[in-house]
């Protein structure tokens, strides 16, 4: 976690306290750079941020192309964990979680947290 408090610090701390969440980040959708983060040791924040933002951009464009409108929530389920992404404006909120995380609860918390994004 960065030493400087940002407008997102409290929101990221709340997400990080969620059981099974190993990291949460606010990331620029366009540049894939970390704006603020709360990560456990071992989570490669910069790499996850860049790739998650890229994934989110592509999914958003696919959704528009398919006529589905905007993306509200994106979840990637992998063998060893989950990546949850939700966006608002030019920012995306990324949560890195263990596989057995309560996705429903996390999704609800991320949707609430999105209100705090610019």
């Amino acid at each position, binding site marked *: 976690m960065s030493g400087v408090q940002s407008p997102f610090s409290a929101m990221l701390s709340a997400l990080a306290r969620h059981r099974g969440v190993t990291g949460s980040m606010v990331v620029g959708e366009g540049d*894939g750079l970390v704006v603020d983060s709360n990560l456990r040791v071992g989570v490669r924040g910069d790499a996850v941020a*860049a790739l998650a933002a890229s994934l989110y951009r592509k999914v958003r464009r696919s959704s528009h192309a398919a006529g589905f409108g905007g993306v509200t929530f994106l979840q990637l389920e992998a063998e060893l964990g989950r990546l949850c992404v939700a966006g608002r404006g030019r920012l995306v909120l990324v949560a890195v979680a263990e596989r057995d995380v309560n996705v429903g609860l996390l999704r609800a918390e991320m949707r609430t947290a999105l209100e705090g994004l610019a």
Partner: protein
Amino acid sequence: MSGGSLAAVERWVEQPLRRFVEDARLRRTLLLHPSGQVVAQQGFARSVDVMSACALAAGIRASAGELGRMLDGRPFGELFHAGDGRQLYLADVATPRGPYVLLAVFDAESSLGLVRLYFAELAEHLAAAAPAPVAEPQVLPSGFEQELNRNLAVLFGRA
């Protein structure tokens, strides 16, 4: 998808650079010596454009290096410029053969985060692939122009 095929004067840079271009989805790429001598290019159609871009990149690197020394006590490691449609990333790559300079041009298909992410891998791969240095490199070799023309001819299939 990245634009244009890749051509290299020094063969050992080809594979790492090709992978970087694909992974980071670059539109144009240059790898050059700090003197401005081109080593590899991707996405450029004319040799005169490569020559100009290399000269400008070397100049920007030199200026930014001095500015970095003045402001931070050491040269800046990387530079980023954002245009309307295209963005530019300029960074040093340290190898056993000495420093090389990478110029990467990308658009909305990629992002600064992705380019930086894959650049870190490229730097590792180039450092591992570089052959041992043969001699102390000169800042500006005496046969610079001749070497430049030869490299451009190799890159554009006129050698």
